[in-house]
């Protein structure tokens, strides 16, 4: 039996899904979409049930990816039962989606969640009256406490096994509309195709000129494709593809023309249907809901007085961000170090074994300096990513993320972006990898792509560390902070400029709408935080693994062949040499170019590369930077800092962009854009500086 969970965002769908499926989940992506697809198998009374958690959505039109997915799933895959979840504390708007589902799907069970919250807000819902008003079963749940979840599933199974479909309530539209719907129904009743969907729904959609009406789709889960993509680096997950089989021409075009002439356009119909649904809801609402003291402030109201306050909102946000940053990027450092040390130790043990077995030297070096060093550098990120995502899930589930978007929206508006991009960009200061991953909350795919592509321009903590060491060496005293601030300012300006520029490139014509729900505050459950954290970390590891392994080996080969020569004569050194024609206009010598080439895997290594090239024995970043002062003028150092800050952060960020955007083209574009921008900016700074008479 196939059962689908549907509901508004934040109703507690994941809580129910996690409780029912436990660890037995498959997380992938919807074909061609950047939205997660979660499914799980459940065994109940010799029934095997496939439960699908559809993305949270406010309606079944085709406005966002989430809506399209939910609609396509219900239309094309026809689940046996739909479990529709409703937030009791916000039932009026939630029922709007329910009414749409009832029109489309004959077997629906309603799960009335958040009853505890509703109660504290003074809302009482009489479940039996609600069930009577809609004529479908209603089950009471408090998902966060695990209450009613099993009953919800049992009821869904019972409905799925019924001989006959339920006959849910039909929204009665105003008379004028009813006549038009009836006329369309009469026309459609003659076609064979029309029998597969509820007639009334078809008529409504035909009047709205829904393009999908009349199309027939085949579902294919091509096995070969599935297994092939399993081991490639960006496994799209559980691949279900829809293939268009045929498009049936439905009758009714003439009728639509007539209506159009009478002033009933597509928009007009849509508005009228929505209006009628809301009217219907307000009409039946008093039968099952009482709201005592609606004016009494709730917890959310009290908290928001501070959290969203024009004065306190920003300090609170900075405090929250500080905790997140401290937790993910500072407190995690010892774990990251432990991982690196563990890797180094394992490498030593392995190399010891290899030596004992008289394996050739180059294999030993490949294992130690290539595989373990390269993969270890990326693995050291993993604790950061995991902790960051735990915080991220916590903030998302608790409702704070929407508040941060509300407060940050003003700044994002300047760049033509959505308020939700704010958090992704701020996270970039910690590490660009989670910053790029945090774009998932953005609904509009183009906004999401832009946010992803500009994220690398924000200097992350390791880069800031290298930069401040170089700044301290070249610009002692208070001049240093001015230089550092000017660099940060430059990065801000470029982020803004790039956002506006990329909007043109990706042809983002429509200004993204910012109509966002501010959900009530919730206390997230442990399970809801830990399960997604685990999935994200695991999928990062799984997908990055092969790619990073290959890249590490390539870098190792380039930087250690021909064997036994100094660094500048290896292939990578040669590359730096060839590339010095790019560096020369910027005043860079070959050493800088070599360091830039080597920095591609992970930029924090740049200083140690420079240390080797400048022949500084010391390990400390301060002394390396000190040694550079003899070889470079401050202007050149500043130019270097600009280029260093702006070019690709690291291999892991590139892999993440590829994985999250699912497009090799856009990833290459991003890399190229970064490189070109950094060198162009470097050139401008260098020549501008010379013109102004700086040394």
């Amino acid at each position: 039996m196939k059962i689908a969970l549907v509901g508004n965002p934040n109703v507690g769908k994941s809580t129910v899904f996690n409780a029912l499926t436990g660890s037995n989940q498959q997380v992938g992506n919807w074909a061609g979409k950047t939205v997660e697809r979660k499914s799980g198998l459940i065994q109940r009374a010799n029934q095997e049930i496939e439960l699908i958690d559809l993305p949270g959505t406010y309606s079944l039109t085709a406005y966002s990816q989430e809506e399209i997915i939910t609609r396509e799933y219900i239309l094309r895959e026809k689940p046996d039962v739909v479990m529709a979840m409703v937030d009791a504390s916000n039932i009026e708007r939630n029922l709007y989606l329910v009414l749409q589902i009832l029109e489309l799907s004959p077997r629906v069970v309603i799960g009335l969640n958040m009853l505890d919250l509703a109660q504290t807000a003074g809302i009482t819902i009489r479940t039996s009256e609600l069930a009577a008003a809609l004529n479908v079963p209603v089950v009471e749940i408090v998902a966060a406490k695990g209450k009613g979840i099993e009953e919800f599933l049992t009821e869904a199974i019972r409905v799925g096994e019924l001989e006959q479909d339920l006959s849910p309530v039909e929204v009665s539209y105003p008379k004028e509309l009813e006549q038009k719907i009836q006329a369309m129904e009469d026309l459609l009743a003659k076609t064979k195709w029309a029998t597969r969907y509820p007639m009334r729904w078809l008529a409504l959609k035909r009047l709205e000129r829904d393009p999908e009406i009349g199309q027939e789709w085949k579902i294919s889960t091509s096995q070969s494709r599935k297994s092939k993509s399993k081991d490639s680096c960006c496994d799209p997950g559980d691949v279900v593809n829809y293939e268009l089989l045929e498009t049936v021409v439905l009758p009714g075009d003439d009728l639509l023309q007539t209506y159009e002439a009478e002033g009933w356009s597509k928009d007009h119909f849509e508005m009228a249907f929505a209006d009628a649904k809301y009217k219907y809801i307000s009409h039946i609402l008093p039968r099952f809901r009482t709201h005592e003291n609606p004016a009494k402030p709730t917890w959310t109201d009290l908290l928001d007085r501070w959290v969203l306050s024009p004065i306190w909102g920003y300090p609170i946000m900075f405090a929250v961000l500080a905790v997140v940053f401290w937790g993910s990027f500072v407190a995690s450092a010892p774990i990251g170090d432990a991982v690196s040390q563990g890797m180094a130790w394992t490498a030593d043990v392995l190399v010891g074994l290899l030596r004992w077995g008289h394996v050739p030297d180059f294999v030993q070096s490949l294992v130690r300096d290539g595989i373990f060093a390269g993969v270890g550098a990326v693995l050291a990120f993993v604790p950061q990513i995991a902790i960051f995502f735990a915080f991220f899930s916590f903030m998302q589930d608790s409702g704070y993320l929407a508040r941060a978007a509300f407060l940050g929206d003003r700044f994002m508006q300047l760049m033509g972006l959505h308020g939700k991009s704010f958090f992704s960009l701020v996270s970039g200061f910690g590490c660009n990898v989670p910053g790029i991953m945090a774009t998932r909350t953005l609904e509009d795919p183009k906004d999401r792509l832009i946010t992803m592509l500009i994220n690398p321009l924000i200097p992350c903590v390791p880069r800031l560390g290298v930069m401040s060491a170089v700044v301290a060496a070249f610009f002692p005293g208070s001049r240093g902070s001015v230089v550092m601030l000017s660099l940060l300012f430059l990065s801000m300006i470029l982020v803004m400029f790039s956002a506006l520029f990329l909007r043109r490139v990706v042809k983002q014509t429509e200004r993204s709408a910012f109509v966002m729900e501010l959900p009530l505050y919730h206390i997230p459950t442990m399970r809801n935080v830990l399960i997604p954290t685990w999935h994200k970390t695991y999928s990062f590891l799984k997908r990055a693994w092969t790619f990073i392994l290959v890249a590490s080996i390539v870098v190792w080969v380039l930087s250690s062949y021909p064997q036994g020569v100094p660094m500048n004569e290896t292939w990578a050194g040669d590359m730096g040499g060839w590339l010095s024609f790019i560096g020369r206009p910027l005043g860079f010598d070959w050493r800088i170019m070599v360091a830039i080439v080597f920095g591609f895997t992970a930029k924090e290594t740049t200083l140690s590369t420079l240390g080797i090239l400048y022949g500084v024995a010391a390990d400390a970043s301060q002394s390396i930077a000190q040694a550079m002062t003899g070889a470079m003028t401050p202007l050149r150092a500043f130019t270097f800092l600009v280029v260093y800050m702006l070019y690709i952060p690291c291999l892991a960020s590139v892999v993440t962009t590829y994985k999250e955007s699912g497009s090799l083209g856009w990833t290459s574009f991003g890399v190229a854009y970064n490189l070109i921008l950094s060198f162009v900016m470097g050139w401008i700074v260098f020549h501008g500086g010379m013109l102004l008479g700086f040394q």
Partner: protein
Amino acid sequence: MKRLLGDLKPGERACVEHIEGGGALRRRMMDMGIVPGVELEVVRRAPWGGPLQVRLKGYYLAMRRGECAKIIVTEAHQEHREHLLASR
């Protein structure tokens, strides 16, 4: 008296009269429950021209000022009746 939603002061209420423009934005507003006749309350405005927090149907929505300027509202005089209905 007709006004734009964006002109309301925090704490003021009004009823939606109609929504200008069309396309995705309007549909989105519709999905969130902003249809003619609905009562809205502006709760607060983010500083420096940031978005507005609006309350409707017992929940909260954040909207930019540009979007609020598309919503024409009239004075809320049905307030009383609605409360009566709700507590019936």
